[in-house]
């Protein structure tokens, strides 16, 4: 079954007098376990597409079904619930809460999901161990390196066992070596059955995926399966 089914969606912004068609007539299906890269230059509409896929925004027209449920007309609270339970976000700038330690950052989605304290701590610790940060649980973001911060963010994305992980330029703020480590981690997650949607404008990052959707001028320009690049090792 499709995790994501979008059909003929458009997104139009009104900027002053002018209407901006950020997305026009886009249709995409993504299956469970896929590793999809969405590519496009800036202004192509890929951010808008990502926001809609991540249920941060809703399309102006068209249908979006997530796990068979129509989310295109959901209200704020219903969308918040979908984001909480079904989507794990990994951002370019990590987006951790600066005043909270790693463990608390990872716990946060569980707090909003109403998981009790004991269970929460257990799951969050487990998730941090999964990304090899078991010994950094009580460090705050500013006490961690960029790569470690991104791994905390990945642990946070994983902790609710979401249907998809949505990574927006996850290596954009990292050096090449650390970026490779993060990409290896995402690859491992995909290997273990997680559905991953990667948004990037860099060809060599997109090559980690097994399917690349190219967006330009608000439309899908090309949607193709690719042979996955072999990654040598996991850090």
């Amino acid at each position: 079954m499709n995790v994501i089914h979008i059909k003929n969606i458009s997104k139009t912004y009104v900027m002053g007098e002018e209407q901006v068609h950020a997305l026009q007539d886009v249709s995409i299906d993504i299956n469970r376990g896929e590793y999809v890269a969405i590519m496009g230059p800036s202004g192509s509409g890929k951010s808008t597409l990502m926001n809609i896929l991540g249920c941060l925004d809703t399309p102006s027209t068209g249908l979006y079904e997530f796990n068979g449920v129509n989310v295109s007309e959901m209200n704020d609270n219903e969308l918040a619930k979908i984001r909480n339970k079904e989507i794990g976000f990994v951002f370019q700038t990590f987006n951790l809460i600066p005043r909270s330690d790693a463990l608390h950052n990872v716990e946060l989605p569980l707090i909003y999901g109403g998981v009790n304290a004991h269970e929460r701590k257990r799951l969050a610790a487990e998730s941090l161990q999964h990304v090899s940060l078991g010994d950094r649980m009580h460090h705050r973001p500013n006490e961690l390196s960029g790569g470690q911060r991104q791994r905390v963010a990945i642990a946070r994305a994983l902790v609710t066992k979401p249907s998809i992980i949505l990574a927006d330029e996850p290596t954009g703020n990292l050096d090449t070596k650390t970026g490779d480590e993060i990409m290896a981690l995402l690859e491992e997650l995909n290997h273990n059955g997680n559905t991953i949607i990667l948004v990037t404008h860099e060809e060599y990052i997109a090559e980690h995926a097994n399917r690349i959707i190219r967006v330009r001028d608000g439309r899908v320009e090309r949607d193709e399966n690719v042979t996955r690049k072999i990654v040598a090792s996991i850090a």
Partner: protein
Amino acid sequence: MGMRIADFAYEVKEGLAISFQAIRANKMRSVLTTLGIVIGIVSVTLMGTAIEGLSRGFNDSISKLGADVLYVQKWPWFGGDEWWKYRNRKEVKYPEYKAIERQATLVKASTPTVGTSAPIKYKDRSSEGVYTIGANEQYVETSGVLMQEGRFFSQAESDGGRPVCVLGSDVVDNLFPNETPIGKTIRIGTSTFRVIGVIEKQGSFLGLFSLDDRIVIPIQAFFQHFGSQHGLQISVKAADIKNLDDTKEELRGILRKARHVPPKAEDDFAINQQEMFVQTFNAIGAVVAGIGLFITALSLFVGAIGIMNIMFVSVTERTKEIGIRKAIGAKRSTVLLQFLIESASLSLIGGLIGIIISYPLSLLLNQILPTSMPISVIAVAILISIVVGVVSGFLPANRASKLDPVEALRYE
């Protein structure tokens, strides 16, 4: 449903944790912000304490007057500004008391009282300016005093002007620190009196003067030894408090006749009663409370604006954080609650500082009024600061809760 209460509890706990992190991160700013609340809470607690003290002191004092006792005097207690009219009145005289005694039917007890300040002496101990009252035997009933030792003087002693006296407890403390005063002879002014009784301690009137630094002697003895009727008043205890107004009317009739007041002329005397104190006190109390309330409301309003302002700043500063929280599943209500908790915490901190400041001030106040800061005032102060926090935090919190996650995440 149980689950939803649990969710709410987690959100409140998280909200508290976030608030304290945020407040700790901006200690100086937070404390300055709460200044208005601090002033408001100091004024609310002190005002509450003062009003509490005033009414407690008043009630203690007024209960000594007796609600069913009327006082016939030259001056009304609360006459307003026509003092010149009262000044030219004739003094109340002893024969008027006799008229009341003879004619009044609705009266249970009545006594003339007249007083003067006199030096007293027992052996080598002495006391200056002790208030010496001349009264008859019914003084015990009209003033409601209780005997601690010995007895009050009798009608025969009163009418005969016997040289006997009854002491207030302060006088006993001063003159007889180590012995019983009963049967001893003391000197009041230039005359000697035998002590036959001691009145139980009464305390002070409105905290102003002691009711125990006094001596009561038979009124005829007073006339003999001190000579003066100046300032004489007549205390009348009604037979039934339900008929207090009738008793008053009866007294008026008797007095008008005794004082030869022409039929259409105004009374040239006053019949005072406790009720007048109560009314005046309530009026003063209302003014004090009104002023207090105004100052309090004003400073709380200023405090509320301060908190609202800083919360708007806080929301703007943390736009990105709000975006992150929303992205990972915080609902509108979650964000709203978080910021309401933060502003309530901020305000509560102000309130607690205010209570801490006003506690020593209330002890100072206690030097003047019989009061201590009541628990109820502290509870009200805490409640008020939380309410002010929630109200002033509402607009900023609402703005935070309605932030678009996409926009908020883009904010740097």
